């Protein structure tokens, strides 16, 4: 089993006629994901890679009632509307690749999704992959391999780094989720940990955090109280200075909040194994599994 997406996932690409949307539609199809349709307002009726393009999500959903996931490549100023449209149409997993969406817009569509019971993954995420079953994202697929380790990360390339280490060491992944690099994101470590805990085919979870916010501290509290499976954690940004955004809009130490040290301490206290280098994930897993 996997979480969020699997072989049955039917994908809608929002912004399919754009450069990025088109490129990654091909890549997802190449991976074997069931991309069934796309949208670009004003371009309904076209075809992209043999897939129908619709003006709206609701039209796509009428034609393909099994649509249950969407991936958004729409430019930042229109992305919130696209996410709202997907949630409103009842899409259950809405993955927002787009970076630079205004934070006020994000708060509103994430709140809406919460009320309607949809998962928002991102914004500013590489997406989700359940290796061998479905790729709903822009990650390079070759570093992932099917298996029993769950991977949750706030960072894109660092996810690939860790996934590559895991794959090299023979630890495949059940599902890998990029939570997104923005200060406000839909799905949190806690949400993902809960799903991996319930997933019978995940044995342990690797959590890749970074400076900024308190998502890792909240994860620690949740791990302590609710998670029985082993958690291995890596936190990036130990050497980052205060008050500076480190690339990701969300990666910033504000006052005493969001330091790597604070997160590492909290996770250790909660019983997670915190590793110092991505490469150490192999050894850590060997010990516990």
């Amino acid at each position: 089993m996997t979480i969020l997406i699997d072989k049955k996932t039917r994908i809608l690409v929002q912004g399919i006629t754009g450069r990025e949307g088109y490129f990654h539609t091909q890549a997802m199809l190449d991976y074997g994901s069931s991309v069934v349709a796309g949208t670009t307002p004003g371009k309904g009726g076209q075809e992209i890679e043999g897939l129908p393009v619709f003006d709206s999500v609701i039209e796509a959903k009428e034609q393909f009632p099994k649509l249950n996931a969407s991936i958004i490549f729409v430019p930042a100023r229109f992305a919130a509307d696209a996410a709202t449209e997907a949630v409103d149409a009842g899409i259950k997993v809405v993955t927002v690749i787009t970076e630079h969406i205004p934070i006020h817009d994000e708060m509103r569509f994430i709140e809406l999704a919460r009320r309607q019971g949809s998962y928002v993954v991102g914004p500013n995420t590489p997406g989700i992959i359940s290796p061998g079953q479905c790729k709903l994202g822009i990650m390079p697929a070759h570093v992932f391999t099917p298996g029993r380790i769950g991977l949750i990360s706030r960072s894109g390339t660092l996810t690939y780094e860790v996934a590559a280490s895991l794959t090299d060491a023979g630890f495949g992944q059940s599902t890998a989720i990029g939570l997104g690099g923005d200060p406000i994101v839909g799905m949190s470590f806690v949400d993902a940990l809960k799903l991996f805990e319930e997933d019978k085919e995940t044995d342990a979870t690797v959590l890749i955090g970074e400076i900024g916010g308190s998502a890792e501290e909240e994860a620690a509290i949740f791990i302590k109280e609710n998670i029985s499976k082993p958690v291995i954690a890596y936190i990036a940004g130990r050497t980052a200075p205060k008050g500076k955004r480190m690339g990701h809009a969300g990666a910033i130490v504000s006052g005493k909040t969001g330091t790597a040290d604070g997160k590492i301490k909290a996770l250790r206290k909660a019983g997670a194994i915190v590793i110092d280098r991505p490469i150490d994930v192999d050894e850590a897993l060997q010990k516990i599994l």
Partner: protein
Amino acid sequence: MRLFEYEAKEAFHQVGLPLPPSGLATTAEEAAKIAKELGGPVVIKAQVLAGGRGKAGGIKFADTPNEAKSVAEELLQMTIHEHAVHRVLVEQRLEIQQEIYLGITIDRSQRRPVAICSAMGGVDIEQVAEAHPEKITRFWVDPIFGLRDFEARNIAKNAGFEGKAMIQVADMLLRLWQVFIRNDAELTEINPLIVTTKGEYIAADARLNIDDNSLFRHKTLAERVSSGISEQTELEQRAQKAGMTYVELEGNIGIIGNGAGLVMATMDAVKYYGGAPANFLDVGGGATAERMSQALDIVLSHPDVEAVFINILGGITRCDEIAQGIVDAQPKLPRKVPIVIRMIGTREKEGAAILEAANIPFLDSMDTAAKRVVNLVSEVDSA
């Protein structure tokens, strides 16, 4: 993006928040003239995009226009936390009965705006939060409904205000909410909100940080950014214009990578082996040879850099583009320093061929590369 106090106050004025009578001056003479027009004692405040202005001596008082002139002269020659003072705000001095804190910011974990109110204003709110957590009232606002009148009153009540004071504080908080919404704020604060001895409620200081991602909706402010008034250093601005993120640090090993998390991990790896990163530079996804070449130039413009560690894990980013950028940059580099390259992922064979043809060595392990670059710098230092 942080606004100057006088800019934040302009936003406050638009929603009807009462402010002290004031004028903005760029010279001591102007300051004196404003002080004369205002009459009576004034407070003169350096306008800089940095916190801790008060402690750094950026706020001064003057009783007469003459005094205002000399004080303004002094302030206009100051540099506060590396920011030169180009403007001072001259304001009527208020007779203070009480100082209140009002603020609205975004709570990342709740994914909601949080309104904060405290009867202990005029000091750093984070210090109040630590010393007297019970003196701070927080309320998480539903981002769809917005802050409602009765909620604002409840916040003021819970912060200890009664009767007309409760109504007044709630009214100011609702206006501050308008500032927050209209300006796509990440943070807006009135600290202190002053109750004068006459019982007036006045926003004595104003803070407003705007979400950079929303600037397309705020054209006037977007122009300010493009005109270069910002908190960033010159190199940081240059990187931003080129579509990259660069942060200056205090070490001597230049860091370049693709992806914010990977670059942070690269810095951490360098530190793990005893080295000190000189910067953070994320070339971003899908970087071209051109951009890679610019990245090297920016990193080497920092005089402390003694070696560079380039860490690429190709996804959208193609190793051949990166390799080509490194090769292209060589003849133009401001100076020669050792460069350690780690490069794997998309088109790694093609990239490898380009580097090999140019006789530039590279590795495939981030860890090994980190160790190597630290060793190289130690050799340089001990040489």
